[in-house]
């Protein structure tokens, strides 16, 4: 009896659960790559281009991971893109303007991310402002703050030794010279792995799913809902800080006007990856695949010399199509 039940639940998990969605998303990614390879074999499947795709996915990938946590709680965070920029700017303030050593500057910049997330969380829980509005407000506020702090001029990290190596150096390339994968890519995958553990194996992850599933039930279970929500938003804010460091390192500067619009790309990646906007369902693997689908698509269309405005049209269509196929799968038991 027990044997049969566990067998069937294993089957159910495989066929009805998230595995199928991941498989579907992964298959779409492979299909995309296959199509582009077939159309432009000499331009698409080159080492330079593949590293380019990996590199261009890092920032959106990390932001999408940050958004995954929020979206699983059935919330939304519109401030992730601008928060990333704010953290980059603050990294500049700490390391360039205040001359902090790099490790301390990094920690402080990440701290600013967590603090901003904490403020969004407090606005949502204590002031009862809906997440959409609270983070919309934070988005405008942080964008303004970045421009004020920098006097609308970029901060350059030329004097911070090794700062550009955070994203652009290659630890892997040092060991295996034929595989010059940039550190930024490595960092994204490490963040993904750690966050997958956090989401699936820790209390924070458990409450993330629980809140998105039925918040009232969590409250009635005696869990301090407000506190955990603030913690989740702060955690997600800290992840935005990592994205901020990655982009600042790659550009070797903090560009205060950058960032707006990134949140929508991040949300798109999350949704393509099978995380439900109504909460309670989602995976980090799915999100990473979603982020890669977006960047492979953009890269491939660019290689095919599709005009940028048509790239946007196609990306939009792909997002709608991805969620539509997901709905089809869900409605069939």
């Amino acid at each position, binding site marked *: *009896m*027990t044997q049969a*039940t*566990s067998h069937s*639940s294993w089957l*159910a998990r495989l066929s009805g659960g998230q595995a199928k969605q991941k498989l579907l998303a992964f298959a779409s990614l492979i299909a995309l790559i296959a199509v582009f390879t077939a159309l432009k074999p000499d331009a698409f499947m080159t080492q330079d281009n593949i590293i380019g795709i990996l590199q261009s996915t890092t920032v959106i990938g990390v932001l999408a991971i940050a958004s995954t946590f929020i979206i699983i709680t059935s919330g939304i965070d519109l401030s992730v893109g601008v928060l990333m920029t704010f953290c980059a700017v603050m990294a500049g303030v700490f390391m360039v303007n205040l001359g902090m050593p790099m490790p301390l500057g990094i920690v402080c910049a990440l701290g600013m991310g967590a603090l901003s997330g904490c403020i969004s969380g407090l606005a949502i829980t204590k002031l009862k402002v809906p997440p959409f509005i609270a983070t919309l407000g934070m988005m405008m506020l942080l964008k303004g703050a970045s421009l004020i702090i920098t006097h609308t001029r970029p901060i350059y990290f030329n004097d911070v030794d090794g700062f550009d190596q955070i994203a652009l150096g290659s630890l892997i390339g040092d060991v295996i010279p034929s595989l010059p994968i940039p550190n930024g890519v490595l960092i994204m995958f490490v963040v993904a792995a750690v966050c997958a*553990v956090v989401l699936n*194996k*820790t*209390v924070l992850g*458990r*409450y993330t*799913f*629980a809140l*998105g*599933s*039925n918040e*009232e*039930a*969590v*409250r*009635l*279970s*005696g*869990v*301090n809902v407000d506190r955990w929500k603030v913690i989740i938003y702060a955690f997600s804010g800290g992840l935005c800080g990592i994205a901020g460091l990655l982009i600042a390192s790659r550009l070797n500067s903090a560009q205060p006007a950058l960032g707006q619009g990134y949140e929508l790309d991040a949300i798109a990646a999350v949704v393509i990856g099978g995380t439900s906007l109504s909460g*309670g*369902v989602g995976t980090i693997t799915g999100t990473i695949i979603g982020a890669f689908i977006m960047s492979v698509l953009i890269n491939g269309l660019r290689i095919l010399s599709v005009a940028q405005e048509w790239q946007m049209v196609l990306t939009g269509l792909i997002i709608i199509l991805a969620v539509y196929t997901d709905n089809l799968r869900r409605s069939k038991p």
Partner: protein
Amino acid sequence: MTPLVSVHKLRKSFPGVRALDGARFDLMPGEVHALMGENGAGKSTLMKILAGVYRKDSGEVLLDGQPVEIESPAHAQALAIGIVHQELHLMNHLTAAQNIFLGREPRKAAGLLLDEDQLNRHAQALFDRLNLVLEPTTTIGALTVARQQMVEIAKALSFKSRVLIMDEPTAALNNAEIDELFRIIRQLKSEGVGIVYISHKMDEIQRIADRITVMRDGSTIATVPAATPMSDVIAMMVGRKLEQTDKAIPDTSGNEVLLDVRGLNRGRAIRDVSFSVRRGEILGFAGLMGAGRTEVARAVFGADPIDAGEVRVRGKPIRLTSPQDAVHAGIGYLSEDRKHFGLATGMDVESNITLPSLKRWLQWGLFLNRPAIHAVSQQMVEKLRIKTPSLTQTAKLLSGGNQQKVVIAKWLVQDCEVLIFDEPTRGIDVGAKSEIYKLLNALAAQGRAIVVISSELPEVLLLSHRIVVMCEGRITGEVRGDLATQESLMALATQRD
């Protein structure tokens, strides 16, 4: 013996409502104490104060003779007070074990990681104690409502509760499941757990309870032994004697067939279902939970797609693609889950009443005609005796019975000739129930065709002129309302393949 819990002169007000006005109550160890009263009598409020969901305004709560101030659900749990709420409070995406131990997850690796194995072992131990065959790793969303209820009970027990509050625990259970629940209750009783049992079902209370406390308008009327005749208890609850609705089945055999359903099929949920209802007739649908009655209703209403079948209204076939088609053809459906499907709970009474028929209340086809909306809503409120302070009261603030009447009103305004009632009295108290019954009879007498789906056999027997019984998606029999008995219906309801 000191009571486990005793409550004195408890008062609690919400904006505009005095929910508790001097309630008294006590619970002994090893006792099943039934709490009865009409909806709005204050039972749930009283229990929510004990469970830490609400804070009392004044009065005293004693636990083992010591005064306590219960501050939060977590505090109540720490005091060994567990509650199974009327509405299930589970997280559908988590497993049974994860649900039960939410907020108390066992950890490993210096508290950093969750110890899923230990979690599942704890849950398994709980299920074993309850003699429940259930895999701890099953996702809650995949369980039947009855099994979810069992998980809720296991969760309440997992706090080593000495006081267990059950608010309408059998609302969604069939007879076999109720027996199972009662077995568990008796076991807990023998372990010295005090159980507060809130229910509207008289027969259950006589089976399981030791004492009954009756509440009315926020006050305690009396505490009596469970052997007290039920007519007396009801009289205390409503403050007046209820007359039994007389049953005389009118002859409708010559009337026009309003709804005719032929060969309805949808997967395994609906298998070759055919039936018809005539003008002035009340057709009952009996069966266990999951027999497919709601599925049939939703299919006829166009809410779910079907594989095959035909629905005719007044002889004309209707396309079954959306509820819009059904409403247009004059079919109204009152869902079993009012809050989710039947009522826009955040909107006010008049907006709800005029929602399906909104097109008729427009000026120049564009602007809402408020006076006309007021007038028709007022007329309905009076006709159905909906108790509401005003037409602009938010629907969710009404009691269950009055919410149900609002849903009925909206289909009456729309002039639906075929009305399908799915569990029309679920969660409604006796007083309101008999009013709903009278209303259904009156609607049939006016020449409408009524379909009533109910899991309570006495209700089906009381109301129906004709009864169709379903089991596992098929119709297993049809009986005349005055010839049917609970036993004959039950035999048909369990007639599996």
